[in-house]
Structure formats: C-alpha cells, structure tokens
C-alpha cells in the first residue's frame, strides 16, 4: 500500500453570487463543492469525472490555492494546505502545479515560450542556470529548442498544451492537477499528450489528479476514479472495478450515454439507463439526494434524506440509498 500524497477531507466551497430578501441581506450561495472527501495516493493517477457544474474544477482550484475553502481541509503529505497564515509557503506551491484545459488562454499571448517557462524557474529555482533548464524542459515535452523564441499563437493546440505542461513541471512538482488537459484538442493529438503525461509520470514519479468528463479516456489513464455530481462525490472505485460494476444510478447513466466505436465496448456498458432530466442549477440543489429528480430508482427516502457514503467492496464507495446496507449490496437490474 502506498502512502497518500493528498488527502481532501469534507471540503466545502460556497460562492456568494448575489443577495435576496427585502433588504438584500440574505446571501444567495452556490454550493460548488459540498463535502468532498478523497485521497490521492503517491504515484497514482486519480480521475475526477463529472459534468459541467459538478464542481470538479473548483476542487482543483482550491487544491492549487486559487480559492480558500469554506470548510474542510486538504493535507499534502500530512501538512495542511490552508494553515493559519494567509499565504501558502513557497515550498508547497512548488510541489503542487496545474495544467489548465485551454492552452490558448492559459499562455500569455505576448510572451515568448522562453519567457513563459522562465517565470516559474525564476521564482522557484533561482540558483539554477535558466537557459539550460528551459532547454531541458522543452526536451522533456519533445519540443524543438528553437520553440523558445516563438509566441503561443505560432504553435498548434497540442504544442501549446505541451508548453503548459512544461511550465507546470518547471518547478519540479510532485503533484500535478490536470484539468481537462485534452478536451480542447483534437482526438488525433490527444493521444500524444496523454502518452507524454504518462511517460513523465513514470520518469519523475508524479501523482496526478486528472479531471475530465470523458469516461473512455479515464478508463485508459486513471488507477482510481471518483464521480462527482452537483458538488458531491457519488462513487469512488478502482478503475477496473468501476467499469465492471458501477453501482450508483448516475454512474450507470453516465456510462450508458457514452458513444462508443466498437461492439466490444457496447457490451461493457450497463444495460441502457435512459438519460432523463436536466442537471439542476447548483444555486437550487434538490432536497435529499441531489440526483433524485433524474434517478430511475427513486424511492421515497431519496427526496428527504441525503445518503451517506458506504463501502460496497474493496475500495469501492457509493453514496446511494439503494446500497444503504454495506455488505448486503445485492442489486441486479
């Protein structure tokens, strides 16, 4: 058993988006992340899957330090990320880096690639020879050295994402958050980026928090998967186990909605759960289990009580009333 590198405990992040009431004093809050707990192990790729508005990016942004959590804690190798003091120590910032979804907007268009890669080096590794490091970084992501003098607009989408990856790795982190690193790219380029990321992980023993909405991709990269819906995690499992026996109705719906390209994959999908209903607005989360409006197995209890996480198998957690009694999870439909 490898140790946990990042532990998230009952993380909450609420945003105040406006005020209501006669005197406009009652805040309207969006519960973007509402009690999320999971742990990422040293050296693994932990997949976080969810549709838009599920709060998966908010988890990433809180972890990297863009927001302070409303409640809950995050520990990195036992060290709390949000201590008493406001600012996170530089040494911790260096360890946790992020690659954003759209390299077109995460790279400054007025800086050359050299300038982009220089900034993290200047802050985190001031004593190293900068030019040498930049060349090493470019080589690491398989870009030619003369790209140093190019601007982001002169690069293709895939190459830009490689620069973004190089920038994240410039500080020699041990934990990298990949926030939909390939969803802005074409499928023919996606493979190259993914394989590059997997190689870098092996070489530098990185741990990844991989965020995506693409379950097929997740199947191929992650060792464990967590599914989020409206700010809460509804299922966590080992990847193989997860795709073999998904428990949560939402997970089943998600899996049966994926368009696939071969008959073998079709066999893997759970029996068709027809996707119905809309994703509710996170401002107005339904009572009880937030999925009950769309759930085909809705019971009376679901509208009143929010289910708690229960263990249904080795490392397999589900938050659903159907699986209320741990150990007794016989559920064939």
């Amino acid at each position, binding site marked *: 058993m490898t140790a946990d590198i990042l532990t998230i405990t009952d993380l909450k992040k609420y945003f105040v988006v406006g005020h209501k009431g006669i005197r406009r004093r009652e805040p309207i809050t969006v519960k973007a992340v509402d009690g999320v707990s999971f742990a990422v192990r040293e050296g693994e790729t932990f997949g976080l899957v969810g549709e838009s508005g599920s709060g998966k990016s908010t988890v990433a942004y809180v972890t990297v330090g863009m927001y302070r959590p409303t409640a809950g804690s995050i520990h990195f190798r036992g060290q709390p990320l949000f201590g008493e003091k406001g600012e996170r120590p530089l040494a911790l910032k260096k360890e946790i880096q992020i690659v954003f979804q759209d390299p077109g907007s995460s790279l400054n268009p007025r800086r050359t690639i050299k300038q982009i890669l220089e900034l993290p080096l200047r802050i985190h590794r001031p004593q190293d020879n900068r030019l040498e490091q930049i060349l090493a970084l470019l080589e690491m992501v398989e870009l030619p050295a003369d790209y140093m003098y190019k601007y982001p607009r002169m690069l293709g989408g895939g190459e830009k994402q490689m620069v973004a990856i190089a920038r994240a790795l410039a500080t020699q982190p041990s934990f990298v958050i990949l926030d939909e690193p390939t969803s802005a790219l074409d499928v023919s380029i996606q493979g190259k980026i993914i394989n590059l990321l997997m190689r870098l992980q092996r070489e530098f023993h990185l741990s990844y928090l991989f965020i995506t909405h693409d379950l097929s991709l997740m199947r191929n990269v992650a060792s464990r998967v967590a599914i989020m819906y409206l700010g809460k995690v509804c299922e966590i499992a080992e990847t193989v186990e997860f795709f073999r026996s998904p428990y949560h109705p939402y997970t089943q719906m998600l899996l049966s*909605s994926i368009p696939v390209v071969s008959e073998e994959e079709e066999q893997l999908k759970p029996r068709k759960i027809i996707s119905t209903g809309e994703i509710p607005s996170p401002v107005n989360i339904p009572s009880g289990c937030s999925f009950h409006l769309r759930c085909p197995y809705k019971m009376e209890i679901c509208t009143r009580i929010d289910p708690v996480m229960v263990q249904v198998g080795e490392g397999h957690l589900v938050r659903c009333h159907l699986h209320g009694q741990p150990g007794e999870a016989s559920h064939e439909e």
Partner: protein
Amino acid sequence: MSSTPLLLEIKDLHVHFAVYGGRLKVLDGVNFVMQSGERVGLVGEAGCGKTTTMKAILQVLPTPPAVIPCGEIYFKGRDLLKMNPNQLQQIRGRGISMIFQDPTAALNPVFTVGQQLKAVIKHSAVRGRPLSADEVHQRAIQSLQEVALADPERLLKSYPIQLSGGMRQRVCIGMALATNPELLIADEPGTSLDVTIQDQVLRLLHRLVKEKNTSVILITHTLGIVREMTDRVYVMYAGNIVEVAPTAGLFSRPMHPYTIGLMQAVPRLTGGGVSDGIPGRIPNYLQPPTGCRFHPRCPHVMDICRQEKPASYQVDDDHYVACFLYRGEEGKGS
C-alpha cells in the same frame, strides 16, 4: 447507385477564403452524394472543412472573404450555386435546414423563443396561403411538444437565456424541424452539451427524423456518434473527402491511413492505453501540401503521394478511398 434521383449532389466543390497574405484554399474538390431518406455522417477534425462545406450548401458563407472558384451543388437536381436569392430563400427552411453546434449563439438573445420560432413558421408558409396568428401559435406549440419540452406556452414567452443548454438545443431542433424540411444538416448538435444531455438530444433527433422521414447530414468529430446515428459516412481531411463507406463497413474495415489513425486515437472503454494518434497537425491552408494533403502525416507515404492527388478508388460496394495504396484494388469489390 440506384436510379432514384439524388437528394443532394456536390461536384468538385472548391472554396477559398481571400485573406491578408493570400488565399486559404480550404475545400479542395469535395464530392458528396446522398439519396432521399439517408442518414449520412461527415467526420473530421476541427478545421478540416466540414462546416464550410455545409455552409456552402446553404449559401451562408460570408462572401467576401469566401470565394467559390468552381463546383456545383445540386439539391434535387437544381444547382444551388446558380439560384437567385429568392429561390434560395425557398430552399432554406422548407428544403434544407440546419442545427448549429452552439445553441446559445444560434438563438437571438433579445427575442423570445416564441418570436423566433413563429418567424420561422410564418416564413415557411410564404408561398402558400398565409397562416393566421392562431395557426402559427398552434404550430409553434406543436413543434415544442415534439422536442419533448414541457410547458410550451411558458417557453414561448421565455428568452433563450432563461433556458438551459439542453433546452436551447431542443428549441433549435424544434425550430429546424418546424418547417418539415427534406434535408436536415446537424452540425455537431451535442458537442457543447454534457454527455448525458448529449445522449438525450441525439436520441430525440434520431426519433424525430425517423418519424418525419427527414434526410440527415450529421457533422461531428466524435466517431462513436457516427456509429450510432448514421447509415453512411464521409471522412474528411483538410478539405478533401478521403473515405466514403457504409457505417458498419467503415468501422469494421477502415482503409485510409487517416481513418485508421483516427480510429486508433479514440480511447476505448475496454482499456488498453491510448495510441499516440497521428503525428503533425492539420496543414496550413495558405500553402497546402502538394499531392495528397495527408502525405506529411501519413505513415505509408510514397513518392507519388507528394506529386499527385489521389483519385477516389472503389474498394468494396459503396466503399471508396482516396489513397494510392488502394489503386490496384479498384473494382475488385464490385
């Protein structure tokens, strides 16, 4: 091919864009045919000219910068490129209508859903007897019901911003089908939506076109959607059609190196890792590669590929590949 008249036939269509610094030669001789009642897929990556082709059919390309140096587009035997604006207006809507990728951009934010939907319905009846306000209202309600939207009366009074993405796309589908077109062009109808919502929208579209017996061109970059929704597929790369095949045939036996690369690049639910994909990137249209436009990225490139553009070779019934690798096999299958 059978003798029934073709619904749509595109012959050697070229579209260029005149920009600062030269001409972007985007479409490079696109050939496309479809019969009435067919559901045809058009796949390719971003920037390969899928949308440009469809916009050329509807004649909604902004000219300038777009120029159509040569090509013919026949809809039921009439060349759309030679029509005057009035005739075209008759075709748009009742003959051909289109669903766009982003429903937020396709709906006008300052008019209610009802105003926009009713305008489409009123306009489609121009040739015949004008519809009364009541009839228009009834038909608007009916088309919203068709796309499984609850409470249509209230929806007609809503502005697009008050609807969710999935609802907006349903409204767009309802609007596109309200006029009972013969051909529906669906340009990535689910791409901007979440997977579960995309699934709903695609199933709805699938059911409606079956009920109404509408012919469909489905544009997408997701191979899985093509497999589930279409009868025949055109694969496009850099402004050329590189492969045409019945859907089942294409997925069981892809032939063109580009199609093969694309298929391998799709991550599978069965696992087994991700392939490296296709090296390189889509060419610069200012100076597209000579010969076959795919040759700089092709693993099987030969000398001839750099010099000549391959013709479309028939390798099986209805299966055509534009690649010199299959030159010898011509006619073998039929």
